[in-house]
């Protein structure tokens, strides 16, 4: 039977892994992720979850053990943050290049130095080009639902790629919220047992991931790109089917709010999307036509949806909890790149906010919206990248 529990997003991620009937969990602690793997350890030791729990000696080994487990034919899950994710970097490439449907919770945290354990998307966005699908969640329910959806997506034969389910440290990871956990039989019905494209099998003795010459390498990369395009088609369908079955739907690739008649759309990721909705409500009361578009899936990037959105608005303001040093926030870059070569473009302004866990409230976003509206009326942006609330 479905039940509602009140718990932190990290514990909920543990419930998600359990509900997905994950079979191998290599685990290594790092703040603010740790309580995910603690929760799973508790499930496994109490016999509530039938999984092998490997207490690995590093995040690098955690990811490689996931690769080994998925290659040997079982569903694998792990979780990490910041420096742990950075340490996994080369293994992330190996997982996607091996086309293994691993799912990992990434509890977003800033990269040091100095040590900073608070939310920031620099960790997962630095892994942009590793061939992983990236989901960003706005609340605890979405964390649970996205883990289930991610396995459904990744194990689709048109995809066979790994996915990160990203959630911001503390804002979600350690915050209690009510979450509906569907009936296990219904989840099993939605998410069949593990499916992958290949398996280590003594009766089919292939060498996997051996040397690939320039004659073949490019085609393998192209296949990953095709899989990403397939994922882009499948994510909205899976989200819709999930919504029909369990009552929660997130708009597929982008969660749009009050965008239909908007002049200005605020583009965010993660919990800033929830705050942006409050800003939109407040500004709408003042008669300002503002909407919010929360990018839920960053890879594959929803280029076509952004293009559609751009056709109906005068201005887009991106808010990045991240900076690509020497350029701008990734959302700003991706959105401008999505729109180039198309006529009649809206203005795009990029805002950097909330780095290293600085609060981004609906009031912060209101300031961003008002500045954007001013630039919109003036017909040009004053600064291509504006750092919000920067101390002098």
């Amino acid at each position: 039977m479905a039940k509602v529990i009140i718990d932190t997003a990290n514990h909920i991620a543990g419930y998600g892994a359990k509900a997905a009937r994950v079979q191998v969990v290599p685990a290594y602690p790092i703040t603010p992720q740790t309580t995910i793997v603690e929760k799973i350890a508790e499930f496994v030791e109490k016999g509530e979850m039938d999984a092998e729990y490997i207490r690995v000696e590093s995040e690098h080994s955690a990811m490689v053990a996931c690769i080994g487990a998925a290659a040997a034919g079982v569903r694998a899950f792990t979780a990490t943050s910041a420096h742990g994710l950075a340490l996994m970097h080369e293994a992330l490439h190996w997982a996607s290049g091996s086309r293994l449907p691993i799912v990992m919770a990434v509890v977003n945290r800033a990269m040091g130095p100095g040590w900073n354990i608070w939310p920031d998307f620099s960790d997962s966005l630095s892994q942009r080009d590793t061939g992983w699908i990236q989901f960003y969640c706005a609340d605890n329910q979405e964390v649970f639902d996205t883990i289930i959806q991610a396995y459904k997506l990744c194990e689709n034969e048109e995809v066979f790629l790994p996915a990160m389910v990203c959630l911001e440290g503390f804002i979600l990871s350690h915050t209690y919220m009510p979450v509906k956990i569907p009936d296990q039989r219904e989840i099993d019905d939605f998410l069949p047992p593990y499916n992958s494209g290949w398996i280590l099998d003594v009766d089919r003795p292939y060498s996997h991931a051996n040397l690939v010459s320039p004659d073949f390498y490019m085609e393998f990369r192209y296949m990953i790109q095709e899989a990403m395009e397939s994922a882009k088609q499948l994510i909205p369908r899976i989200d819709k089917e999930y919504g029909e079955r369990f009552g929660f739907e997130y708009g597929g690739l982008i969660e749009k709010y009050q965008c239909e008649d908007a002049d200005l759309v605020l583009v965010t990721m993660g919990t800033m999307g929830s705050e942006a909705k409050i800003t939109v409500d407040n500004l709408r009361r003042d008669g300002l036509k503002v909407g919010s578009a929360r990018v839920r899936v960053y890879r594959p990037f929803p280029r076509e949806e952004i293009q559609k959105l751009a056709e109906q608005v005068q201005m887009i303001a991106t808010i990045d909890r991240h900076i690509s040093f020497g350029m701008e926030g990734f959302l700003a870059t991706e959105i401008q790149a999505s729109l180039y070569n198309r006529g009649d473009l809206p203005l795009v302004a990029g805002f950097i906010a909330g780095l290293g866990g600085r609060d981004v409230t609906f009031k912060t976003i209101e300031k961003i919206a008002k500045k954007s509206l001013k630039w919109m009326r003036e017909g040009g942006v004053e600064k291509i990248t504006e750092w919000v609330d920067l101390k002098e």
Partner: protein
Amino acid sequence: MVTIKELPQEEYLLKGHAACAGCGPSIALRLLFKALGKNVILVVPACCTSIIQGPYPYTSIGVPLQNILFESTAAAASGIVAALQQKKLEGVTVVGWAGDGGTVDIGIQALSGAAERETDFIYICYDNEAYGNTGMQRSGATPYGAWTTTTPTGKRERKKNMPFIMAAHRIPYVATACPSYPIDFVNKLKKAKEIRGTKYIHILAPCPTGWRYTTEKTVELGKLAVQTGLWALYEIEYGKFKLNSPSDRLVDKAKRKPVKEYLALQGRFRNLTEEDIAKIQKWVDEDWERYRKLASNYLL
């Protein structure tokens, strides 16, 4: 204990593999399959075997092989072992097969972790005493005095004692081997297969390309390494140290050939002085004093 006549005819290291002529590790790889048969999942990091197996879409290996990142052989094996346990699939042996750089240097963390977790697999280090696949750079397993491309005048430090490091993990089985003694190696593998937990076998595998000797001398050099006592064949079973034949007959220094006989055959030791050779001889003799004590019922 098998004899050479009892070795199976089946080959799982197939013809046409890409090893150098006279490659010591490839002899050991062939024997590995003779000992363990086809129900093996082989995990291979970046190493000479990345090349030996051949490029996509070919393979020279007749068992499923997972290539994996340089430092992570034992971590990948951990994941595979866990998956097999979860699937309750028995009768498949997971084998990590890595070079010395991938074992004693970059891979030591993952290996140490897997051993401490009592992961049920066999880990084999095939040691040619340098980073062979990248063209012979110094590793932690390179011996004192040896030329490598990063120690052009000879290495100044001693070789890391990896089997003893693994024994310090209190794993049930540690052994040394050399492809010049095939039956010893095969029997050790067969024994390791029957033991639950982490089994570590360290093979000294002569490498004509890197050691600078002519390709027909690989077996001879392996034998000389053992006969001079530079490489001892032993097992540490549940902490108990035991010398194996022919090393068990070499405790008496008079029975051991001088190390110079081994060193002189290799171009990589060309720059050694008489003092260097004397130093190496002294270290070998000290090692054997230690082996003698360990072999007399001393628990490691």
